[in-house]
């Protein structure tokens, strides 16, 4: 059985001990556990981020399996429970706080109060805007990374990370709207999720440029 020391040493050898300590000491909130959030959480868990706060109100559905990190035997489970289970298979030592709740302007300032790094990973445009506005208005110390525009099968090269302001970063192509009839396809959604996760890891490491 893998020990905590073996796990940490393996990551420190690949990432460097100083960087690995920063990852291990970090806490990240992932808001929404769909195609973006489940892939973001995978990347952060594999990098050895020490603590993840997971938020979603939904259950695993067959329509999720084309792009989200769930499995047929998890159908019907709450996404928070299903993803926590899988993340612990990646890193048995990961600390997880998972809450099955719909985030709102009222509860965000409370539930995300202690989160220095926040990933927006919702699917609806109005909900993305709600989270971003609430965090930027009410949580003045948090860094926020959001995703907008990853539907369809355009080039992966059009997805990028932009720094909008001192503590707000936006990933995606900015325009590919699922409402325009474009489907969400595994690889392109994962590219956007990887942009979000990479920006979070850069911020943890102390890099503030996009």
């Amino acid at each position, binding site marked *: 059985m893998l020990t905590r020391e073996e796990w940490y040493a393996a990551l420190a050898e690949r990432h460097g001990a100083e960087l690995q300590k920063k990852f291990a000491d970090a806490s990240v909130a992932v808001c929404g556990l769909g195609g973006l959030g489940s892939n973001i959480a995978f990347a952060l868990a594999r990098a050895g981020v020490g603590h993840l706060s997971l938020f979603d109100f939904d259950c695993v559905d067959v329509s999720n399996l084309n792009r989200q990190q769930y499995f047929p035997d998890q159908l019907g489970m709450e996404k928070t429970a299903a993803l926590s289970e899988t993340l612990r298979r990646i890193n048995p030592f990961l600390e997880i706080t998972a809450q099955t709740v719909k985030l709102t302007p009222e509860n965000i300032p409370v539930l995300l109060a202690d989160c220095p790094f926040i990933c927006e990973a919702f699917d609806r*445009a*109005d909900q993305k*805007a709600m989270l971003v506005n609430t965090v930027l208005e009410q949580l003045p110390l948090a860094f926020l990374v959001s995703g*907008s525009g990853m539907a369809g099968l355009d080039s992966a090269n059009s997805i990028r990370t932009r720094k909008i*302001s001192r503590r707000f970063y936006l990933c*995606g192509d900015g325009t590919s709207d699922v*409402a325009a009839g474009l489907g969400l396809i595994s690889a392109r959604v994962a590219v956007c999720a990887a942009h979000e996760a990479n920006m979070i890891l850069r911020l943890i490491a102390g890099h503030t440029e996009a």
Partner: protein
Amino acid sequence: MVKVNGKQEAFDGMTVRAMLDALQCQTDRVAVERNENIVPKAQYDTVILQEGDHIEVVSFVGGG
């Protein structure tokens, strides 16, 4: 003139809401930064754009 998403626009003197209307943005899907600070939603009718302001309007699209 006001710089909006990198483009010069004659929006000085307008409220944030009037600017969003002129840009045909849906206010429930945007975040507006003015000179690197978020404009609270509750102030869209009262914040007046000033000459030289740098505005970033982020219009979110669906999918995730």
